[in-house]
């Protein structure tokens, strides 16, 4: 077992453990904080995968913004669930069963796939993923449309969220 494998295993276990806490912990703020640690684990996974840009973006977007948004939302809807009462609905066992079945199904399907034991080729020297990304994002032959549409999507989300949550007409 090489060092990289050990790193991966540690990170994966840490991530999955945190993920398990996200879906089971009673306190929602804790759940959000566990989510942060899960996402940090995913960021480390990206780093292990040499996707440096994704790794930092993961931290910037998820931990810097999405987690904060979650915590704010929990605060704003706080009075309701508190920490008492069941946090799972009455069909939770069925949900768990389905989740396990999904994992089993995915695992089963992956087993039958030939490309599974592929190993990664070395990154070519002088390869700059960020510059390459910049190239792809604005080149008309590649992803310029998704690039622009992403901004439309973000604006739509902003406008929609502002309107839905805080439409002055609905009042308090």
């Amino acid at each position, binding site marked *: 077992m090489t060092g990289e494998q050990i790193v991966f295993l540690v990170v994966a276990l840490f991530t999955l453990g945190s993920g398990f806490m996200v879906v089971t912990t009673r306190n929602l703020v804790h759940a959000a904080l566990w989510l942060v640690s899960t996402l940090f684990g995913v960021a480390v996974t990206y780093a292990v995968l040499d996707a440096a840009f994704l790794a930092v973006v993961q931290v910037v977007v998820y931990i810097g913004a999405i987690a904060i948004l979650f915590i704010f939302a929990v605060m704003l809807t706080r009075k309701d669930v508190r920490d008492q009462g069941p946090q799972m*609905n009455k*069909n939770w066992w*069925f*949900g768990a069963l*389905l989740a396990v*079945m*999904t994992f089993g*199904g995915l695992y089963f399907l992956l087993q039958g796939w030939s490309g599974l034991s592929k190993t990664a080729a070395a990154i070519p020297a002088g390869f700059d993923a960020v510059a390459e990304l910049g190239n792809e994002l604005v080149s008309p*032959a590649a992803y310029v449309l998704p690039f622009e549409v992403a901004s439309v999507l973000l604006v739509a989300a902003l406008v929609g969220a502002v309107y839905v949550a805080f439409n002055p007409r609905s009042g308090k």
Partner: protein
Amino acid sequence: MTTETLIWLIPLPPVLAFFLIVLLTNKSKWLSHTVGVGAAFLSWLASMIVFFRAVSVEHLGEHPFESSINWLPTGNSWFEIGVLIDPVGAAVLFFVSITIFMIFLYSVGYHNFGQPAGDHDRAGLPPHGATVEEHGHKHVVPSVEPMYSRFFAFLGLFAFGMYVLVVSDNLLTMFVGWEIMGLCSYLLIGFWYGKESARNAAIKAFMTTRVGDVFMLLGIAFLYSATGTLTFREIFTEETLHMLAGHTTFFGMTVSGFIALLLFIGTIGKSAQWPLHVWLPDAMEGPTPVSAMIHAATMVSAGVYAVIRMFPLLTADMHGHGLTVTMSIVAFIGAFTALFAATIAVAQNDIKRVLAYSTISQLGYMIAAIGIGAYVAAAFHLITHAFFKALLFLGSGSVIHGMEHGVLHTGNHKVDPQDMYNMGGLRKKMPITFWTFLIGGFALSGFPLVTAGFWSKDEILADAFGHGHWAVFITLAVAAFLTAFYTMRQITLTFLGEPRTEEAKHAQETPWTMTTPLVVLSFFAVTYGWVGIPEHFPLLGGLVPNWFHDFVGHTLAEVPETPEFSWIPLLTSLVVALGGLTLGWLYYRNVKSVSEDKLQIPLLKNKYYFDEAYDFLFVKPAYWFAENVVYKLLDQRLIDGILHISGPTTGGIGKFVREKFDLPFINELVGDGSANVTYWFGGKLRAVQTGRVQQYLMLALVTFIVIGVALYFFVLS
């Protein structure tokens, strides 16, 4: 600028105007309509340049203007989209750009720009008029539309859709334009969303056309899977068509015939052909008559345009003059619609509804023409019809606008300004409207020699006769007779005689923004026919070269031959046109009010629900799944009405359809049966609808897993 670049630019100004108006200028009415009309003008200008360049090019059919760009990567090649102007496209672009520009201009006047805001107008309702004080006493004057800017925004989007449809070189972007127009027609019909009828009509129009569109999309998908391309010029090559015609698919039809049939169903929805015609009369709920005109003169033409575009596909498996299955269906639906809508139009009292049914009927003409292979004639009639029907709609709008003036003057809001029996004698009050309406009406009736309608209609009849399609020929001839009859009825009731109401006496001519389009369109309604006079026509033939046939005919790989000249169709069209007009005038010139009309006596009792009765009788076939119960009640009232409206012909057809088709088949078997089944299932499945997202998700997932496992074990292994 190259012509190709210019073609790319044609659709842009209206859509930019749409965004400009929606985002920036919607507070200012003046800015909004300036932007809108300016954009329409730019598109018109570009279209004219393109058109004249297209006309001056030799062999445009073989070497059309085309340019395309890569759009979507599909595996290792690209799906291309682009623009194409071939002779048909150029001819259609010509009338589309003119009518759209005229609509924009006309809307300024129609929505009372420059008038004060209404006393109690609200957004979503038609303006009710404003009180102004002048020289000490109060007047009621028309008030400006509250959602003036929004109207121009919608119009802009609509124009964008139409231009995209016309200039696109492939079915996909054409379908995009098609759907944009579908959306706009929904928005415009429901423009006065405060009125429930408008809301319902909007939904009806949207849903009905959707039925057709689903089939059209299926057709497009089928075509793509069969050929791997959606570009017209690639599909219509010898090899591709031969390949498509050589294979058979469902029901023993050839692939090309089946695809053409699916695409044609889309046209049935869009062009309001039987049995999906029901939305068009209701679409008259839109702001009269601007959007009505859009639906009637411009958008519905899109359906016909689509079929004309698909003509090579339609005829791919044709041998000699024998009609293929699909062509027979097309011809039947067209001819049937032409006759059937004409019979309805005879009994309408609402000035717009007459025109709506007339439009359905005339579109049936074109479809029938395509069905019998009269390609050029269909295109010709499409264009002449667009001109004179646009003229008629705008004219009727002008009439209504004038009548509303009278209504505001007397203050009696119970008088329906659209009912022709409230009019009469308007020729003196509204001379420009009268003369232009007369021209449009005569063109519609096919008044011999001078009007455009005559030449195009004659060409269809001649084609039907020349190729020996007797059934189509006779049906269309009867429809032409009825057309002339109801047109004259309309003109007589509206403009001739003496005013029948106080309101009609106080009607007023409309402003220049409304009359200018009328004059421009009436010019084309007359002259456009002269470009397509057959060469062998007695006396006139050969004076003007048959330019249209030559020009448009070259779109196809082989130019269709003109049928031998024969006196029979010519005499027929002369007789039906003149006969219908004379009869209509003789019949209605003495009618001072509804009560004096001997033939209309039953109408006295049933004055209002004739429209609905007809509506429900013929809506049923398309709507059997929706409104069972309601029309059962109305059915009881139908028979009397039908028998007395327009004589035994109409009544006979109605009775036949009702007794042999509707009642046993649709009502009992399909209607009630499906309703019962649906109800039963609804009752059983209600328990599943808990409204809880998580349970839905679980259910979906269980289904997914079950299907996945089943697929894995039964299909993959």
